[in-house]
């Protein structure tokens, strides 16, 4: 597998950086190389936040994403800053709360709403997003991703996060049908 570049973006506090870490750790579980990096403003909450993951079977030299195969945006600000204008062929996923004009082909999914309404916990929107990302891009085996999620989340929240992950996969399955 050659280099895959993924860009996850949202607002500070949405767990975007953790989602990137989990995705990278899932790749490591499969013996691949992965690099995760991030950029964010000085503020602790709010502001546009970006987490990038590179997965490769080879060593990763340049650690930043310049040619993503998938971009996620959970907020309008993040969409405008990090996702708009991607070339054709790049999979762009947005939360359906993004209320700005979208490029053609962008996949809009109720990620945050699913976390809030089906699980009662908007905090797991990042895990729902991970399920959706892996559902569409098949970056790692579902078992690896689940294991990586469970390795990182607080004790006692395993069921909640497992459900969140599966609901993410379901969003993709439903959007395909």
């Amino acid at each position, binding site marked *: 597998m050659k280099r895959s570049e993924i860009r996850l973006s949202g607002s500070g506090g949405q767990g975007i950086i953790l989602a990137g*870490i989990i995705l*990278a750790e899932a790749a490591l579980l499969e013996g691949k190389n992965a690099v995760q*990096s991030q*950029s964010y403003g*000085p503020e602790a909450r709010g502001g546009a936040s970006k987490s990038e993951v590179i997965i490769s079977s080879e060593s*990763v*030299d340049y650690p930043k994403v310049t040619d993503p195969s998938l971009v996620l945006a959970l907020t309008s600000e993040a969409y405008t800053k990090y996702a708009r204008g991607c070339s054709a062929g790049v999979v762009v996923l947005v939360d359906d709360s993004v209320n700005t004009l979208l490029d053609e082909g962008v996949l809009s999914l109720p990620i945050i709403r699913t976390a809030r309404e089906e699980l009662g916990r908007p905090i797991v929107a990042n895990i729902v997003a991970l399920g959706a990302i892996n559902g569409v891009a098949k970056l790692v085996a579902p078992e690896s991703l689940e294991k990586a999620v469970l390795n990182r989340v607080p004790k006692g929240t395993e069921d909640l996060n497992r459900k969140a992950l599966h609901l993410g996969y379901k969003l993709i399955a439903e959007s395909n049908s």
Partner: protein
Amino acid sequence: MLLLQGNEACVEGALAAGLDFYAGYPITPSTEIAELLAAKLPRQGGSFIQMEDEISAMAAVIGASLTGAKTMTATSGPGFSLKQENLGYAMYTETPCVVVNVQRGGPSTGQPTMPSQGDVMQARWGTHGDHPVIALSPSSVEETFWLTIRAMNLSEKYRTPVILLMDEVVGHMRERIEIPQDIGEVINRKKPTGDPKDYLPFKPDADLVPPMASFGEGYRFHVTGLTHDESGFPSGSNKITGELIQRLHDKIDRNYADIVQVETEHMEDAEIAVVAYGSTARSASRAVKQAREQGIKAGLFRPITIWPFPAQELKSCLAGLKHVVVAEMNLGQLILEVERQVAGAVSVGGIMRADGELITPAQILAYLQEVK
């Protein structure tokens, strides 16, 4: 096998090398180092203290080191500036310590969350007076682990502060790292063995390094930032002044081969050398690979030890070279040293960037295509 940040790897390296004492004042993008050591160092029997500012953190590190502790502090540009006076004090009093600077955008408060390599010359000349310096620059998470250990070893071996010059990219990026059980040699400072009443804390052995007693061990030990004789008390003698400054330089210069490390890629038959360090070297490595695929004979020369500058290694690569280009996230710092060292032998150019973004492989490749 773990996925760790460079800052986390720095902490693991420091703990593995036997860190006893950390004093610091948090500052992005180095804060994770303090945060993790606050949690981990006390559990290993060490002490962590958050001071009121970077000046006092540097002072605390020096004081702790004089009692025999292995010490470290971490900061970024603005804090590194504040530490400079005491860094000179540590150098002149030959007090081992490690100062980590995770470089961010400057000057002043600058761009706290963005990378730069703008402190290369501050690391060399930030503190006043004639002084030698050791500064190491890691390019990866794993190398950060090993260079933190090495920084601590060199500081103990040569009784001198050592700067670990990281950058925000390496500090914050996460990548795979294996932390082995056995980290190899851990060096502890040389202690005096003679009768305490004969002890001269600044009388060097043949290797120019004086054995160092710990405060409270029964050895008389006076420390001053004033020029001092072997007893440690101030001296007004021109002879002693000249000899001390010279010895401190010789102590580092004569051990150049032990201190200086570089890594090269494709330099054997290279016509163009890209000199790059820290995170920028990762971009350069990719650009060199891409250039080779296009038949451009490029190579990478990566100083791991930034100071002393690896002049001998660079000069030994010069045969066959048509051009040297220095890629760095500043408007021209290490290039000054490269130009000085290769003066007249080969032309030198620069790929520079100071907008808070890592130089891209494409930027370097475009340069290589142009000068080939």
